[in-house]
């Protein structure tokens, strides 16, 4: 089957899958409805300060798996819902940033710089429209790059990289993630090391489960949900609760000034904003394609480049960046939204998650089974249909559908979400904590899993306090087993050559790059973690 045949099968898998309902005889598939539900839910979550996309993905996953089961038919509805959340949360985060100077998601911080001043000047709706237009543009551009690049990159990886090179590539990815996430290469390495150590407990090839200290509970290892949800979600809840506790009694009134003037986005506005959007979309996509480099950096870089350009081209009486200019919002939102699609390039082509959302997509795929993100997905077998490739094109279809929802109803829904600021974090976060613990239990069905998750939660909290980013921990936990497996196979395949990483030129280049990236990043510690 050729590439067009696979694309068509992917589209059909989405639209001709199990029916949710029909309108005037036209069948609406469950997958389409799940993308829509996830997208709207994502906007709500993004617009709620204290919550973010990964929270929503974490708490939805066990419910989705319970509803759809573990069959391959569950993949597209579940992954479609998660993709919807990912996209919805990105635009939702701009709402409280613009209206209340409180970023709904961390990457919306830069949006406050111009969004809030615009709202204060009575231009809140226009600011929201600019944010939505820029976000949707950046996201769409990024998705197109993903659709084109991921298959080619995967084919190159499969064609040219053998087991030693793949081992080297995994080491390079971990080193790169350690170096770039959080601003401290040393702390990144510690986070990676702890993640690897955790995944190796209770596993191995010998009958004795290694590092289990003879304890029955540890002999089965830590379930992936306990590590991921513990460090990422419970740790974040503890940290947020601590911040809420410090802020108790300092509640700021949530008031939006009276709006005045033209609030619509006209064609001349779009023409004026377009260069800023295009530049930032490109920056966000390039940054998003690198595993581990988050949307916060993309937003900062997009904003800085936009500001430099704006200083040169703006009219004398026009506001500068930081004073409430639409160009500032456009530069930020296009950049941070362009990260989300491109972040899936390393996931789909290499099997390496680059951000928290990608972690949950991999977790969903791993829980359900039948789809293992990585270069093998893009094997265009001419004689036998490769079901994983159909799912991959189904995912691309889901992303396109989510973009269509974003362009059509996303703006209106987003602008109606201002009231979410009024939900107090102090009530919401304990409920999220119980929800997360319950979600872990229904998946693992043993209290031991909750204890593990709580332990990982405390670890995640301590890591955050010490500005050690928990994301490298989680990525290392996910990649740890495949690193060991690939190394074992490479060792055997090279005739038990202990220097297989150094006797192969491409693997050697990857190892040298790993060392170089740590040395380069280690020379410029920046001090704080996101």
């Amino acid at each position, binding site marked *: 089957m050729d590439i067009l045949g696979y694309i068509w099968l992917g589209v059909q898998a989405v639209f001709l899958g199990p029916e949710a309902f029909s309108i005037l005889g036209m069948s609406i598939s469950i997958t389409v409805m799940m993308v829509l539900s996830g997208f709207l839910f994502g906007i709500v979550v993004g617009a709620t300060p204290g919550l973010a996309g990964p929270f929503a993905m974490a708490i939805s996953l066990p419910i989705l798996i319970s509803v759809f089961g573990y069959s391959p038919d569950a993949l597209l509805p579940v992954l479609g819902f998660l993709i919807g959340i990912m996209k919805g949360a990105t635009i939702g985060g701009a709402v409280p940033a613009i209206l209340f100077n409180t970023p709904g998601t961390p990457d919306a911080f830069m949006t406050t710089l111009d969004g809030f001043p615009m709202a204060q000047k009575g231009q809140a709706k226009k600011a929201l429209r600019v944010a939505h237009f820029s976000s949707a543009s950046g996201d769409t551009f990024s998705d197109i790059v993903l659709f084109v690049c991921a298959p080619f990159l995967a084919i190159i990886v499969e064609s040219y990289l053998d087991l030693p090179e793949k081992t080297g590539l995994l080491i390079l990815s971990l080193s790169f993630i350690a170096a770039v996430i959080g601003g*401290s290469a040393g702390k990144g390495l510690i986070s990676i*090391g702890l993640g690897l150590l955790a995944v190796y407990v209770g596993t191995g090839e010998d009958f004795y489960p290694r590092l289990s200290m003879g304890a029955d509970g540890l002999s089965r290892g830590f379930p992936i949900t306990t590590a991921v949800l513990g460090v990422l979600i419970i740790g974040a809840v503890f940290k947020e609760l601590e911040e809420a506790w410090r802020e108790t009694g300092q509640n700021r009134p949530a008031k939006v000034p009276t709006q005045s003037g033209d609030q619509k986005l006209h064609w001349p506005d779009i023409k004026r904003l377009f260069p800023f959007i295009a530049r930032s979309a490109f920056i966000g996509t390039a940054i998003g394609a690198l595993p581990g480099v988050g949307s916060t950096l993309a937003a900062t870089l997009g904003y800085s480049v936009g500001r430099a350009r704006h200083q040169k081209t703006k009219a004398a009486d026009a506001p500068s960046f930081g004073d409430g200019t639409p160009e500032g919002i456009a530069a930020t939102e296009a950049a941070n939204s362009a990260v989300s699609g491109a972040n899936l390039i390393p996931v789909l082509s290499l099997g390496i998650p680059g951000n928290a959302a990608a972690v949950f997509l991999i977790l969903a795929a791993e829980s359900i089974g039948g789809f293992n993100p990585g270069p093998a997905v893009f094997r265009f077998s001419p004689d036998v249909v490769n079901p994983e490739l159909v799912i991959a094109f189904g995912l691309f279809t889901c992303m396109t559908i989510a973009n269509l929802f974003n362009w059509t109803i996303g703006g209106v829904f987003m602008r109606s979400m201002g009231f979410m600021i009024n939900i107090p974090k102090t*009530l919401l976060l304990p409920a999220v904590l119980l929800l997360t613990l319950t979600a872990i239990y*229904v998946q693992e069905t043993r209290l031991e899993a909750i204890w593990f998750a709580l332990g990982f939660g405390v670890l995640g909290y301590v890591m955050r*306090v010490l500005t050690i980013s928990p994301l490298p921990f989680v990525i290392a936990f996910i990649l740890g087993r495949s690193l060991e497996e690939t190394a074992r196979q490479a060792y055997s395949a090279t005739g038990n050559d202990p220097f297989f990483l150094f006797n192969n030129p491409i693997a050697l280049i990857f190892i040298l790059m790993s060392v170089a990236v740590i040395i380069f990043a280690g020379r410029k510690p920046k001090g704080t973690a996101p």
Partner: protein
Amino acid sequence: MQGQSRSNLYLGLLCVAFALLLIFIWIPLDTKTGIVEKARGKFVIGDALAPTVAAGFILLGGLVVSVFERKVADQPTISRTQVKFVASLTALVIVGLAIMRFVGPAAVEIANLFRAEPMEYRLLRATPGWKHIGFFLGGAIMVAGLVSVVERKLTRRAVLTGIITAVVLIAVFDLPFEDLLLPPNGDV
């Protein structure tokens, strides 16, 4: 630069010590195969290699933090208040989970005092009402307790939030799915 935190130095040294402990004590004592093993006449990678690589990452990270990043500005600190706060949160969660675990069986034992034929919680864990007691009470107390700690006072709103959360989660996870078990019903 008065009072500059030296947390990076301490963190780095702690990580170095932990990595050395791993490499020289824990991993050799707690894995049955070494870094490389001879099996069926040929060498294979043993179970100790991967954890040793993990320890290597921690060791390297510890060295980088304690040597090259020990003097960076704005180093974080862990205050006693933070330790107390997270300890109280963890304790509340543990209390909530303990209530979840034991209240259901305890309620059955109390009911047995008034019944001629004794019941067993294990056999009732699929029965509506009985199977919800532990989760409802433990969950509601956990959430209400956490809200109260964060808001520094016990309010009706906190109690209501706990009750609503527990009820909503029962409605979401238990009512629609027959095969899902709420805590602690998979363990008893």
